[in-house]
């Protein structure tokens, strides 16, 4: 039986469970989480009662009641007493936009770290590696209000040692710091981490402008945070990998998909260019018209499932990303589990109506 107790999951290697066994076990855990949150988060209980079809335990992952990830931007949803919240994470957002507020207790936070370490084993091995963060240390200045960027850097810093920042406080490339880091760890594997657009804008572009080429031959670069800005510049995942290989000599460039609302259970991109659900998480693609599930190959709204969230009802979340299941278990890379691709954000249509005239004018 897999219920709320995470032991079973912590014993699973991330990409070895076959789809059927995983679905059965994860459904049980999802049922337990749904019930937990129903009992501990009154607002969630109301949503379950009114807005979802859920009525007790379900048989399949697709039947697990889900809520929109956007809800965390509009409401405070918590399944533990306020005094047990020891960290509140917020999503990144430009000024004026609402941000998600995710309440973590120690248990959920610890579970995030444990699960992430299982997945990170696939990227860097069992040992912590010297780490170069391709960002500015100023992102971490305000510890009380972690932005998604800060939380991501901190979360992944756990897997590095001798953590060094490649950018200065003003987001300029700090070449002396990078060179000193590379000298110190010459001939050793190193771990690089950053956000996709930041790497492109503040690492690759300055290097290119300087005509400089780095030789981080034993580097593994993990990056995430979305492709929207790079899609605008027509940079694909493949271009990105080739460019980083070219400008910094990095052989292994791994993209991940994840969100602050489900920190820990990230989805890694494989050599074939597909994102993989680890044992602890899964992905469902839904039709925009009625939220019915779509078969592999069809593009729809991405729902993400994770066994981690306990202090907030975020175990089954409907995102605003469009994606497509590419297959179950049989990826050529050898990893098991649902693999998928993300096609970008769902289009935001102009809303019609008779309010907001003078203010909205360009």
């Amino acid at each position, binding site marked *: 039986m897999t219920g709320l107790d995470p032991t079973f999951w912590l014993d699973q290697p991330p990409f070895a469970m076959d789809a059927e066994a995983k679905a059965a076990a994860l459904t049980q855990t999802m049922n337990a989480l749904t019930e937990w949150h129903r009992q501990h988060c009154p607002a969630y209980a109301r949503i379950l009662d009114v807005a979802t079809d859920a009525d007790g335990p379900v048989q399949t992952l697709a039947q697990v009641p889900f809520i929109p990830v956007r809800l965390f931007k509009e409401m405070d949803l918590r399944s533990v007493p306020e005094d047990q919240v020891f960290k509140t994470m917020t999503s990144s957002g430009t000024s004026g936009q609402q941000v998600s507020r995710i309440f973590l207790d120690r248990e959920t936070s610890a579970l995030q770290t444990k699960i992430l370490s299982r997945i990170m084993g696939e990227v860097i091995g069992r040992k912590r590696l010297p780490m170069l963060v391709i960002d500015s240390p100023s992102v971490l200045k305000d510890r009380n209000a972690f932005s998604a960027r800060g939380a991501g850097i901190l979360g992944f810093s756990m897997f590095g040692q001798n953590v060094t920042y490649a950018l200065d406080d003003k987001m300029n490339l700090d070449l002396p710091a990078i060179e000193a880091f590379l000298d110190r760890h010459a001939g050793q594997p190193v771990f690089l981490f950053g956000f996709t657009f930041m790497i492109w804008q503040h690492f690759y572009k300055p290097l290119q402008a300087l005509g400089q080429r780095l030789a981080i031959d034993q580097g593994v670069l993990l990056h995430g945070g979305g492709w929207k800005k790079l899609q605008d510049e027509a940079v694909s995942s493949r271009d990105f990998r080739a460019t980083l290989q070219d400008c910094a000599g990095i052989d292994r460039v791994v993209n991940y998909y994840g969100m602050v609302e489900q920190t820990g259970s990230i989805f890694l991109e494989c050599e074939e260019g597909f994102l993989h659900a680890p044992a602890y998480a899964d992905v469902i693609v839904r039709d925009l018209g009625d939220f019915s599930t779509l078969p592999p190959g069809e593009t729809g709204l991405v729902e993400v499932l994770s066994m981690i969230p306990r202090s907030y009802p975020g175990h089954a979340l409907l995102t605003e990303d469009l994606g497509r299941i590419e297959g179950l278990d049989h990826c050529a890379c050898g990893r098991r589990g649902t693999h998928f691709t993300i096609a970008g954000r769902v*289009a935001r249509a102009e809303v019609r109506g008779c309010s907001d005239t003078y203010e909205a004018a360009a």
Partner: protein
Amino acid sequence: MKPLPDLPLTIRVGGPLGTLDRRPLKPYAEPVLAFLAALSKALLSQAEVREHPDVATFAFWCRAANLARLSAEFDRRHARLGRGLVLHIAPSNVPVNFAYSFAFGLLAGNANLVRIPEGFVQVEIICDAIAALFDRPEHARVASMNRLVRYPRDDAITAALSAECQGRMIWGGDATVAHLKRLPAHPRCVDVAFADRYSLCLLGAEAVLATDDKALAELVRGFFNDSYLFDQNGCSSPHLVLWRGSDASVAAAQQRFWPALERVVQAAYPLADARTVDKFTHLCRTASEVAEVRSATRHGNLIYRIALTALPADIAAHRGQFGTFFEHAAEDLEGLAAIVTERYQTLTCFGVDRQEVVDFIVDRGLPGIDRVVPVGKALDMGVVWDGYMLVEELSRIVHSA
């Protein structure tokens, strides 16, 4: 009268600002009727207009026969003249509204400056038609009095224009109205302000049950037009559906009404974008925030129906989105008296005696509801709107005793 100052506006239709003729006409003046009738004809004869029912509806409204009817109904006990120059701040997200606003100003006998929205083909169609008519000698008087303009949000320009205006038509809800009213205007300036409004629908259960297929199709098409054409965001689009009848007949009528509406929405309202997510998010939030919510019925993502255990007094604070309707059943109109505030604008009705409803509003002195119209007519603009008689508001009386 001295000419208007030169301002950094983009003139879409009409000559330079400095040449604007601000001498007023009397309401329903011959040159204005001839111009609007010609505009109606020009638009209705364009094949392109077929794709834009909102443009066609405007053109149909300003056809000669309808203007003649409006003119005949106009109260001429007093001599009247246009107030002078009217500034129209039109909604930026409803394409055709500017044209009605302009026409009301014209019919009242005014010179008009209309700030028009960007980015709609409908706006360009109407502007092109107006521009072509302005070039014709028979419309020279009307052309000399009117300018359709664009300018970015700029308080300096709006203030400079306001200082010259004897009337302002301010569309765009509470925020815009509050903002523009803070700008100093001409001391004689009359503001006709269109604030945020809330609208609802009253359906007689027995009448819905008695519809044949054709009448039902017309009813749900009308309801669809009222609600979905502006993403349920028009000030007269309903958010609450009140059913009148016994519990049993209401339940049966709902079984007849909503599936029929669903078929129309399915065919005419593609929802394959972020609105779906917004709609579902809104439903979840409403479920947790409104204690009176009993249950929700989802017709796919096309229609969300939210059943209430009782009508919360602040129901108007909970608007639907993209086809989300609160529902409540009652045997009589008493429930209305408990909820209606000055924010309430349009009550669309089916299977209910509208005169009875109007009498109820007046007898009980309800602070809101300005329009009681059949389902399907919620968005029909006219010279009586939002509780104003617009031609009267925008003209002045020359009294003799």
